[in-house]
Structure formats: C-alpha cells, structure tokens
C-alpha cells in the first residue's frame, strides 16, 4: 500500500472513491489513523486519508448541536465544548494509548465510525445515540446525507446510525452532526474497598436502581486498580468498586453523603473529587488499567454483556484463560486480557472459548488489541451466521458493490 490519497474536500473525496470504484482499486480509510489497530487488518491498494476534512463548521450551544468535518481532532471538539460548559455525554474514550499512540489524538469521525463510548454509556447512551446527521461518500462514489441538526427526526431512514460503528466499510464520513449536552457542575466518585466480585455485582445493581442517580459504575480487581494514576485506587491493596455522581454542587455533595452511608455496611468507603474523579474514569474508559501490550496483555478483549451477567461471565473467562479482567458499565462491559498463549493453536482455542462463554451469557466480544497476524485469523467482531450474515453482506453490497472501502475490516471477505 504505497499510494496515499488525501482529498482536500468532500468533492475530492467523492472523486477519489468514484475513481477507485471504476478501477476496482481497494482503499484503506483513515482519519488520523490512531485506531488502525482496531478491527481486522485491511489489505488495500491505496490509503485514503480524510485528514483534510477538518474543522467545526457549526456550533450552537443553545440548540445542543455541533457539526464538524469528519477528521476534526477530538481535542479541538472537546476544547470548544468545554468553553461553553458542554460535553459529549457518551464520554468517548481515548484509545490512543491502547495502540501505542499518545493521549489526546483521534478524530470525531473515528469515534463515530467505531461507535466508541465510555463509562457514562449505560446512563447517557452510546455514540450512536448522539449522532444526529451525517454526510458521507459511499463505495459507489456518491455523496449522500442523512438526518439533520435536530434531535427528533424520522424523515427517512436513520442512515446516520447505519454508518455509526460501520468502520468505514459502507461509506466514508465527510461531515458529522451530533448532539452535545451540558457538562455537570460537579462530579465525585464514591469508592468502596475490598468487595468480592459477587458483592460488587450486587452493589452496582443496587446503585443503578437506587435514588442517587449514578453516572458510572466500575469494579476494578486489585491488579487493575494498582495501575491507576489515582493513588486512593492504586494503593487500595484490594479490589475497588467505583460509583460516580454528577450534577449540581449541592446535589452531588448530598448524594455523596447518602451513597456512602448506604454503602458503609458493605465495607470501607472513600471519595474522589473533581480532577481525580475525572482521571479515574478516563483510565477506566480507555482500557489502560489492563496489562499493556508486551507486558502480558498482547490480546485485549472488550465484552458487551447483559449487565447482571458481566461479573459472572468475566469470572468464568478468567478462570478458563487466566490473565486479568476489569468491569465497567455496571457489569455490562468486561475488559479481558487472557494470560498469553504460546502457540497459534492455543490462541485460537482461547479465543473460541472466550466467545463460547460470552455467548452463553448472552453477549458479544470484540478483540480490541492483538498482533496483526492474530487479528487476521481470529474474528475481531462477533461472527454472524445465516440470515443475519446474508443481510450484512447485502447491505455492504448495496453501499459498496465493488468492495472498495476497508475490505475485511469488520468481517473476512466483506
């Protein structure tokens, strides 16, 4: 893949894809390329970068909406939002460090193309819930738009959702419009020390149902917590259950007191205020509390499970494959770094075992990080079968009939 195509604008993007389709030339698509390690490896004849399609072109804080070129840096978006006291409520995680990149990289288009959401996801929705509109160029080399700048909209199919999380395999985003929300005046995290996994499951379920209106719930076993930069967590000497409260200053103060009182009979509690609370949840969302690549964490999985199944499912996988696990989304998200396997056969068998257990608990697994050779062999995303696989194939063929865009990034041969 020696050729780099870097269109200056949407029409250039359209022309580049139309030409590739005419010549049946495959394209590997990227923004800033920070998530190139996520998904199956793409073998393409040229590299298409949308890096030039950058910049916030509309921001109306009173309408809770922002519109930006697909390659607008996340840092630029987050700065603009913070100045107006707003944020992306789905809390996009900064996955850079997972792939050996510096923190603070990535683009809004990348976040949306991969549908990446952080710790607030169970309470505020995913990236896909905040995308209001898109402009994109399909694999046919045609520009199309969907949605708009308003939240409530059923005018035509929701193509914005179809493209969110499609990893650039159907169309290349040129412009995205998304919902933004006020940032809470205050945030605190209540820590509960030393719970067993089963007790933590009950604590998180009770916290979600309780009157405190929590906005994140994680359970960090001792090894994971020890990697935190927040000393109260790192030096806990045991597992930590973390529950976040956000809202008005007075409200958060009162709710923290009430929540700690309710948890007191389950063990020793602590609390993190603004900066340290934010630091902890950034780490939890980014998956950096699990072992680094090369330090026993060559393979890192992210499992989406029914929340009440998370602790049990993660526990079974750890028992079967060794290594480490950590839990977010009140149990609905399990980060899993199995003990390193020696041979390709052992890696494949481990992956199959992990998928089998995940399926038994009613969830699905994504291989977030692994050496390229492993990602080429082991399905990265939940494999599809039968009528669903055929439907996915027909969707791909309708948007990208010549298989030009990111071939094989999601599914082999697609």
């Amino acid at each position, binding site marked *: 893949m020696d050729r780099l195509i870097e269109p200056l604008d949407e029409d250039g993007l359209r022309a580049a894809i*139309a030409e590739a389709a*005419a010549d049946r030339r495959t394209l590997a698509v990227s923004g800033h390329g920070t998530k190139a390690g996520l998904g199956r490896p793409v073998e393409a004849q040229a590299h298409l970068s949308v890096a030039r399609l950058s910049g916030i072109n509309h921001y109306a804080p*009173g*309408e*809770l909406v922002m519109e930006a070129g697909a390659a607008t840096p996340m840092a630029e978006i987050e700065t603009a939002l913070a100045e107006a*006291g707003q944020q992306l409520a789905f809390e996009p995680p900064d996955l850079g460090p997972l792939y050996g990149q510096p923190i603070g990289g990535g683009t809004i288009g990348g976040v949306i193309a991969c549908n990446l959401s952080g710790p607030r*996801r169970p309470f505020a929705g*995913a990236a*896909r*819930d905040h995308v209001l509109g898109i402009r994109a160029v399909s694999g046919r080399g*045609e*520009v*199309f*738009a*969907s949605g*708009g*700048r*308003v*939240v*409530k*909209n*059923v*005018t*035509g*199919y*929701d*193509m914005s*959702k*179809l493209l969110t*999380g*499609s990893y650039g395999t159907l169309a290349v985003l040129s412009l995205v419009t998304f919902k933004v929300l*006020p*940032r809470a*005046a205050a945030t605190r995290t209540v820590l509960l020390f030393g719970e067993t996994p089963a007790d933590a499951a009950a604590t998180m*379920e009770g916290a979600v*149902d309780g*009157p*405190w*209106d929590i906005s994140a719930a994680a359970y960090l076993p001792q090894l994971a917590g020890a990697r935190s930069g927040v000393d109260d967590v790192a030096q806990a000497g045991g597992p930590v259950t973390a529950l976040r409260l956000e809202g*008005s200053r*007075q*409200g958060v103060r009162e709710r923290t007191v009430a929540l700690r009182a309710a948890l007191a009979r389950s063990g020793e509690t602590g609390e993190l205020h603004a900066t340290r609370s934010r630091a902890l949840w950034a780490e939890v969302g980014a998956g950096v509390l699990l072992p680094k690549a090369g330090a026993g964490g060559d393979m890192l999985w992210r499992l*989406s499970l*029914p*929340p*009440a*199944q998370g602790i049990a499912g993660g526990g079974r996988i750890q028992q079967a494959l060794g290594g480490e696990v950590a839990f977010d989304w009140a149990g*609905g998200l399990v980060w899993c770094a199995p003990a390193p396997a020696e041979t390709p056969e052992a890696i494949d068998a481990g992956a199959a075992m992990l998928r089998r257990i995940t399926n038994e608990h009613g*969830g*699905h697994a994504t291989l977030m990080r692994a050496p390229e050779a492993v990602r080429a062999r082991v399905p990265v*995303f939940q494999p599809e079968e039968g009528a*669903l696989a055929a*439907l*996915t194939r027909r*969707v791909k*063929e*309708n948007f990208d*009939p*010549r298989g030009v865009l990111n071939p094989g990034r*999601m599914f082999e041969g697609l």
Partner: protein
Amino acid sequence: MEMPAPDHRIISRRRQIARSLRRLVRGEAVIDRAAELSAYESDGLTAYRQMPLITVLPADRDEVAAILRYCAHEGIKIVPRGAGTSLSGGALPLADGITLGLARLNRITDIDIANRTVTCGSGVTNLAISTAVGGRGYYYAPDPSSQVACTIGGNVAENAGGVHCLKYGLTTNNLLALELVLMGGEVVRLGGKQFDAAGLDLLGAMTGSEGLLAIVTEVTVRILKTPARAVAFLAGFDSLENAARCVSEVIAAGIIPAAMEMMDGPAIRAAEAYIGAGYPTEAEALLIIEADGPQAEVAAASARIEAIARRAGATTFRVSGSEAERLAFWAGRKAAFPAVGRLAPDYYCMDGTIPRASLPLVLGRISEMSRRYGLAVANVFHAGDGNLHPLILYDANKDGELRQAEEFGTEILRLCVEVGGVLTGEHGVGVEKRHLMAEVFTEDDLKHQQRLKCAFDPDGLLNPGKVFPTLHRCAELGRLHVHGGQLPHPELERF
C-alpha cells in the same frame, strides 16, 4: 392519495389467496368480508382510505414467517399494521396488498429486572410495558400520547417519542433487541440484553423505517427505575416569544428537564375547557416543565427554573404539590389533540422539527398562514427538542377545505425545512409527506436510503408507496454509474 398502480392479477385471485392464507394461520385470522375489512381501511390519518385486499392477523412469529414466505413467492404486497394509530398514513392499505395486523402478538414474554429489560411481542401496547413493571418501580420511558393504544412494534416503525424524550430519548435510544422476519420468511435477531448490539447497527436502521424493511415480531426494551422525585411546573406567559426565551434560557443554564412542553393560547383554552387541568386561560403561551431525579437535584433545578421563568416574564408560575397535581398538569397536555378536536369537525396534525431558536419566527409565520388560508390553528410543541405539532382545524364536509388544510400543512413543513429543520419528528413520512422528501433530500440521498431497502426487501413488497416519492427498482439502483451520469427512467412510478 395516489398509490402504486394495483396489480389486477392479484386482485382477481383474492378468493384463492384468502384460501391459501387460511391454511397458514390458525383460527379466524383471515378477514376478507367487506364489512369487517372496513375496520382496516385507514389509520390515524383518516383523510385517506383504501380497502385492503385481505387482512390477516397472525398469532405468532411462525405464522408471520409463513405468510411472508407465501407472499414473497406469489409477489403479493404486505402492509404491516400495529394498532393503526399512525398519523402519517403508514398503515394505509393497498387494493392489491395484504394488511398484516400484528396486534395479536401481544404477550410479554420476559421481564428481567436485574438487567432492566422487557421482552414482548410487537403487538403489546406501549403503556402495557410500563404497567407490567410499574408495581416494581420501573417504567418504559418513551410515552407517545397514543400510548394506551399504540403498539411497541408501531413505535419501532415510527421511532415514536413523547413528552419525555428530551432527557430519556426516543424509541431508538431505549431499544435493545428486535426479532424480525424478512420478506422471504427468514428470521433475524438483532441486539440482545447488553448495551451495545454487535455488527452493523441494523437495529438503528430498522427503527423509524416505517414497515418498509422487515416485520418486527418481538421487541426488547430497556426499562428505567421510576425517578425518586418528579415535579412539574406550569408557567404562563403573555407571549410566545417570552415562553420561547424561557425554553432557551433553561437549556443555556445547563438544565435538561425531563420534559419541556409548550401550548399556545388556543390549545391552552381548548385543553382547559375539555379537562379542567387548571391551566391559565388568559395566557398566550404555557410551558409545562418537569424536573426529575434525586430529591437534591430536583430541588436545585426547581429553584433555577422558577427564577428563569420569572425573568423571562412568566405571568403565572405553579409547582405541582403532589403526584396527583403533577399528573393533572400533564392531563391537559396529553388530552390536547382530542380537546382541539372538539373545536372543529376535523383537524390535521403536523409534526415538523425546527431549531428551538426559530420558534417565534415559525409560530409567527404559521399564524399569518392561518389568516391567509382562513383556517384556525392550535399549536402544541415539544419545546425542549424543537418538535412542533400545529393542529389545523377544518371541515372535510366543506368543499375544498381538506385540500386547503393539506396545502397549509405543506407550507408549514416547507417552512420547517427552510429554517433548518425537518419534515417529521416522530409521526413518520408515510404517504402524507413523501411528496416533500425531495425538499430535504437529493436524488442520491434518497437512492442510498432505497439501497438499504433493497438489502432487506429486494422485490419491494413491504409497504410500497410509503416514504419515497419515486419507486426505483433495486436492479436499477444497484447499477454503478461509473461516470456519474444519471439515467432518466421515465418508466418509474412517481407520486
């Protein structure tokens, strides 16, 4: 209403088709007598009527699959129908099509409190879900005003909203899984009880697809714990501008209330006369704002909302002192449509969404149009998320008034698009707004939407004539125009 030209070969085989269907479904589920079929000739948009070829009421997923397999083989069109409450003609029958009524898929099959999910047949009503879990302190958030009657399957088809979607989202944000039957009879399951569904977001694409992609037979939704506290405020204003300013300032203050609804003078007075909710009848605009959540947060938000409302010029401000009073505040809003319905023999409900900031401009222009058309209008408005419901009053028995009302409505929707909004927030395009799709979308936008349809229903048998202004064939859509030239297709049906 112009629909795809009926296929007379299908119509002439009506008796034989009914006989075949009776072999596929149990009981008295095939309706082909005119007297009974007439119950299905329209939906909530009663201005348009058409007798279906036959109506079938399958009892379960397998019967749905058998019917679709048979119809795919025979080339018979299908019009899905839930409770028939669509306000855009989404369930308007076809003379040569089978109306597939899904109301008998009405069982709640799983209540999973630990995972906060409910799984049920697509014919279960919206309210029945909240009722089933209410005793345990949970509810299903989207609450369209037809929630007593409308089905969850219909909610998925239209991406139904309601008054609480400002904070809690629409159907699409509260949906976890679907069981679908494709036109060929294949069963597909999307999503599960986990937060994120795997693969392409077909769950998202299905939501709001107006019955054109697949038949939904089972739905899993997320339920929420009933908030610890909920308080409603009634703020009366002597102008719509002041009320609109109040809405903007609440949002600008960083408050996202659970609901923020507006009614104009005619709507306030109609609702008050109808149900006696205690609304200030001298006001020209009324806001119903709800704050919910932990006691401490509700208290903090309440004080700030009251200060903002008074600063924006509220002439009256009331806080619900009890749960009964909170519900009474809402009763007037929820009864607004029937209340306005008493003012004239007929009314026509519009559903545009606009940026909040353009509200005074849009309402001003609507009242100017009202004078020009000589038709009265009352406005109810999901002010928090910019979704406008002007109700145009008319009398279908008066010569030309229906057409006048439709033209008035079209002009309102064009205005919504002009100010940066869209044609429909939650009622769907159906047959009603398809002629306006080209105002919002380019030819290529619409073709890509239809290509999604081709992936699901390549023969175009599911609900044809809805949503799209032109029926393209999938073979033509599939062709790659390498040099970008658009071939004219004079043979295509255009509405």
